[in-house]
């Protein structure tokens, strides 16, 4: 899985796209790994731009949960922004907004978590 990154207001923004289902979740884990390694105290916050994600399954949610745990353990900042309605619904049902901070847009997120 290709994860293009850019930096804005001291936040490392990662564009995620496509369907994160059972099969894609393994690739998603691997692609996220080097980014998470740098998500620690004193490092830029890591923000996943979900505007191009059409669907996320429970396996995908698990990747986000583990990412969030790891960031927390490293005292880094990890968040998600710009969820599509369908994905927003999945987050609402599973209450994942309680586990990973979710923002309406990238700009909104940068205002909060930016340096």
């Amino acid at each position: 899985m290709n994860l293009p990154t850019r930096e804005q207001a001291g936040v490392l923004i990662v564009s995620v796209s496509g369907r994160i289902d059972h099969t894609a979740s393994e690739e998603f884990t691997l692609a996220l790994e080097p980014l998470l390694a740098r998500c620690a105290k004193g490092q830029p916050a890591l923000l996943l731009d979900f505007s191009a994600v059409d669907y996320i399954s429970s396996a995908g949610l698990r990747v986000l949960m583990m990412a969030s745990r790891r960031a927390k353990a490293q005292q880094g900042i990890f968040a998600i922004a710009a969820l599509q309605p369908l994905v927003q619904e999945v987050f609402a049902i599973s209450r994942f907004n309680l586990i990973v901070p979710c923002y309406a847009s990238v700009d909104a997120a940068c205002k909060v978590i930016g340096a």
Partner: protein
Amino acid sequence: MSRLPEMLLAVIRAGRGRAFPLLLLLLAAGLLMQPDMQPLLGIREAQFDHYQRLLPRQRDSEPVVIVGIDSQSLVQLGQWPWSRDLIADLVDKIHTGQPLVLGIDVVFAERDRYSPEVLAKHIPDMAAGTLAVLPEPDRKLARALEGTPTVLAIAGLSQALPGGRQPAKPLPVFDHDRRRDAFLPHFVSALVSRPIIEAAAAGEGLINATPELEKTDNQRGVLRRVPALAFVDEQPFLSLPLEMVRVALGDGGNVRTENGPQGVQAIHIGDYRLPVLRSGELLLHFGRSSAHYYLSAADVLAGAYDPELFRSRFVIIGFNSTGLQDRIVTPLGESLPGVDIHAQVIESLLASQALQRPYWIQWAEMATLLCIGLALIAFVPRLRARYAVLSFALASIAILTGGYLSFFAARYLFDGASLLFLLCPPFISLLGNTLITADTLRRAAEAQLQNSREEAARMNGELDAARRIQMGLLPDTATLFPDERRFSVAALLEPARAVGGDYYDCFMLDDRRVCVAIGDVSGKGVPASLFMAVSKTLTGTLTRRHSALGSAFRDIEAELNRENPEYLFVTAFIGVLDIDTGHLEYVCAGHDAPLIVRNGEVLAIDIRAIAGPPLCAAGSYPFESAGMQLQAGDLLCLFTDGVTEAMNGNEMFGNDRLRATIATFRSLAVQDCASALRDAVRHFEAGHPPADDLTLLLLRWHGATGSSN
């Protein structure tokens, strides 16, 4: 397998199947260095003969006329040898037409039978006067020969015989070259005409032929090579036809050789050039035989032809009678009088055309053999058998075509057939190795396939066992509450794989409270199924133990979190229904809100206030329960995302289709409702394999008094 085939296989397969073919190729190269050994000689000559048959020499002009001593002449003029005054008459007749040169393919070695001395011996009492006036035939012939330039035949002898002597008319100008001359034929002596006749001639030419008798037995005496230049006791002589051309050219007929590194490669006579072998032999390119230019000696003597016929032509007197035993077989398969060869040699020289096999052709053949052989050895082991055969076939066609093209283009004799013959053993060895390797690989692949089948079967067996155990963990709703009239319940679970991560449960907490639960472990397959078993068990146990649902949920999460190295989590919904009052108490951890069908309308259970994240997702979440009142006849529908997220390739089944489907379930039995919903999902998927486990649990409350059905 016995030892011999095993050893043979080991030899073929040595060095990745390349060592043995390389050895065979080197042997082939060695064989190619011995050009005169069978079977290569036979193959080569057959190949070269075939070239000539395909393209015999064109015989456009007829510069030669042959006056044949044929059967008709013998019948009319008597037995051979004729008296020389008869031959002198024949020569005179021909001279009147003024030919360029006359050649006589006859050696007049002994005294004529009718010479006076011989007659005197036969008739001792002949009168001296009679003897004095008797004609001298040899002298008459000598006088006749003086009229026109004439070339006489000589026959080289490889050992001194009685009657042999040194001929008197060698090439007038000829430079000696020790290296070149070593390869040329050397005769110690020759059969020559009588000096009186010899003196009258303009030149003498050799008539020895080189039939390939001594070398081969399968190509019996086919004449391919004709001597062009030889030495008789260190004196150089041309063959009869070449000598005739030299004499015809007069002062312009200088003879010199063109020498290459391997000896002579061509003879120049005046401006004419004739390619020859270093043995001084000419590889004659034969033309089809023709009877046009044969005249009968008897007819010529009788004056049947206009003498103009001979003007400016080469004329040869020779034998043309089967009775006189001078016939040769040509590569074209024709039997010709020997004298015809002289005519063909003159034609060849005038056209400067002969078959060419210069010394470098052998090296070209060797280079071709090694190049193609090494290429085969390099590439055939990498190719599949069919392409190996194809590449060899292409190489063969290229070699043979090259041979034919070089013949058609410049009369070069390139021996493609022998190369093909020599390349066969290395190729067969290579192909053998390829086939053996392919066979070995196929056997290995078959064995591997068999192994993986067995492995898969074993795995399936284990998974089947796991599936049976997992399914056994789930209660069978059809037999659970056989006499219950206040509610009815139905459930089904279809894993996407052999085992899944979904679960449901349904049991009585006490005699008036029924508990229903549904859960979905993140992921699927074996890891999820193990976590599912733990979750399902803990849910059942702890819900029974706690009086409050919220604290039961918190306890379940705490227990699950205790050992969860894979960070799996589980969404769950648990509801407890008071059967007497219809009050439903519930908790929800990240699960889809269950639906209620009430009088054909679909409502979602309100979980907004109390829903928490999935169990084990956030650590310890303070779960609380909520409650609502059911109406008699309400259908409670619990489901997992295997329903709403079923795909048909383009879109998901979704909440709307789910609601529309269950809205039609009015008084249908719950068992049938479950099947109908499952069928609707599968129909929607239209054959696409399910991505996730599908679980349903339907409960209908019939009211405190129960239902009649």
